């Protein structure tokens, strides 16, 4: 009789065992082994083209219904209002007729819920503004609000602050922490996020270079991650 190993008291949320992904014959991820447990706050660093996006999408495919995903940009519908874009986070949890109705004549209950969520990301009073009229930082806040409104316990975010100025970046990253119990966030800029996340994964050329608690990550390690090819 073997007992459950004591080193794994919390179940695995994501588990990749030797995953490789190739597009048009070109390897994007090579033989990835990765386990992420519930409650972890993970940041993925790596140069552009390292495979961060592909890795995150792979995780999304594992648990689509429990996960909220924040994209770098172009993920909102610019012609729709803030309300509709935030509400879109819960489209798969509602019936099609409820969704259609909300498009034309929003339900009071949903409006109240969305209003409460956008207050948390600092967008009070913008409920009916068209997303195309908002600044880049405000648009990313809408994306965060959509993730919060989705009400799931896992957050995946792909370079969520890449197109936002540095002042806004810090604020948005802090907000991400409160979206879900577990988050996996990829970032390009290593100066952000070290104080927000507890575990750091370094990705380079489709492979995991290191996977350490934040406290053990040295500047040399990071510099090495971004070395020229």
């Amino acid at each position, binding site marked *: 009789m073997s007992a459950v190993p004591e080193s794994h008291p919390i179940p695995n949320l994501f588990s990749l065992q030797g995953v490789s992904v190739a597009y048009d014959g070109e390897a994007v991820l090579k033989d990835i082994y990765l386990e992420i447990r519930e409650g972890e706050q993970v940041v993925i660093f790596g140069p552009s083209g390292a495979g961060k996006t592909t890795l995150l999408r792979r995780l*999304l495919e594992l648990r*689509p*219904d429990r996960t909220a*995903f924040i*994209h770098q940009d*172009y*993920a*909102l*519908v*610019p*012609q*729709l209002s803030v309300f*509709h874009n935030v509400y*879109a*986070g*819960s*489209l*798969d*949890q509602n019936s*099609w007729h409820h*969704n*259609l109705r909300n*498009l034309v004549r929003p339900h009071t209950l949903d409006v109240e819920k969305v209003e409460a969520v956008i207050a948390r990301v600092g967008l009070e009073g913008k409920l009916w503004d068209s997303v195309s009229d908002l600044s880049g930082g405000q648009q990313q806040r809408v994306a965060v609000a959509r993730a919060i409104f*989705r009400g799931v316990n896992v957050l995946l975010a792909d370079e969520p602050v890449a197109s936002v100025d540095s002042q806004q970046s810090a604020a948005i990253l802090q907000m991400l922490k409160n979206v879900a119990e577990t988050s996996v966030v990829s970032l390009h800029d290593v100066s952000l996020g070290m104080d927000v996340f507890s575990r750091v994964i370094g990705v380079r050329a489709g492979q995991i270079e290191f996977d350490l608690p934040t406290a053990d990550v040295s500047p040399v390690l990071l510099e090495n991650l971004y070395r020229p090819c």
Partner: protein
Amino acid sequence: MLKTSLGFLGVSIICLLFADIEVTTIDPWIELGRMLKGAATPDLRVLWDFRTAILNTLVFAICGIAIGVAVGAPLSLFFHLRPVRVVCALVRAVHEIFWAFLFLPIVGLNPVCGVLAIAIPYAGVFAKVCAEIIQEADARPASALPYGTDRLTRFAYGVLPVVFRSFKSYSSYRFECALRSSAVLGFVGLPTLGFHLETAFREGLYCEAAALLYAFYLLIFSLKWWVRPRAVPVWVAGSFLLLAKDVSIQWDNISRLAYEILPWPMRRDGFLEGSDTIAWTAVETNQWLLDLIGNQGMQGTWDTVVLTQVVLGVTGLFAAAAFPLVCHHFWNRNTRGLGNLLLIVVRTTPEYVLAYVFIQLWGPSMLPAILAISLHNGAILAHLTGARANQITLKEDSPSRGLDRYGYEILPRTFGQLLAFLLYRWEIIARESAILGILGIYTLGFFIDSAISDNKLDQAIVLIAISAILNVGIDSISQVVRRKLRISVGKITTLT
């Protein structure tokens, strides 16, 4: 690209050698003088007498476009299915007037005939263009919606808001086309503006004709004031109410039509006996079909192709020469305003009306048809190319003389676009070339028109099918050429 263009131009010149471009009237200039005098002194009083025709023009166009959108836009979601594409292509390839010819025997000279004649080909166009708009649209917002979202919701939240504006602007452009179609349907007898226009021209009442034309321009130029999004439901509902007043479909006529489109050899014995029985005469029917295709079909197709190719060349040259008129790299504000007005008037006038006027002047030959179709299409292409040219920013050291700037900067930069526009309109030019046969040149329309007047529906339907196949063929060649040259019309939706 240059080689291809020169190739097309070469074909155009060779076709011109085969084209009959004689002036047959004795003194065209006297007639032109009378027309100009009419244009200067329009008889506006007649408009009150023609109010029903003007109202009909509107009602046909509104009902036609409403049905076209209602059928075509949802079809665009299934445009990836081959049968849908094929049916839409065939339906599109048949001109509104030919559709009217087909419906006349069923419903008679009735509003339903006019509405269906517009609705059916427009549904095909809407399906195609909406599918293209969706394909060109940004797909990222839709792909960022939650995984489990159902298809309808995904479309409503992720696709529709993104493409809605393009849909809207395309529909309003298309409504302008529907008004033109509706007016032109009058020339074959339906109770719209064209009916009185034709009478006025035929009887030389140019003051009346001018008044009718001006009323038509007014209708089109004022579109932006009375076609407001909120008013659209009112216009549509009102039009259908008016239409419903005099709808009468006789179902016997449909079975009658089904009988009459059968090839004559199959009906002959029954007809002679008076029993209307149908005989399966495969050999004779085959011979009948071969004769029809070999004589009228071949001659009509040949003349249609000759006319199409000449027009293609002339349209290209005209557009290349005329687009600087509306381009700020060449003319100042005032001159551009004048150029714009000229191009708008020319492209607003239905090519059928232009051809009709030119034939009055010079007699029936290919010359009036060439000029009419080239002017109308050239004005559209010049407008679009000019708009593209206006987006070019020139460096300070670019040539200062207009002609140098045209040849070394602007034309090279817009040429691919212009060629793409031209090739896109190729099938439309072919459609128009076929239809102008009704005015007495020997393109397919001539033989279709004669078959209809002789009550030979069986022949008409075969010839209409030939014209449809010709158009579909030209469309596929155009697509191949555009793909090979790697040119595309981009996000321009006011081309078909």
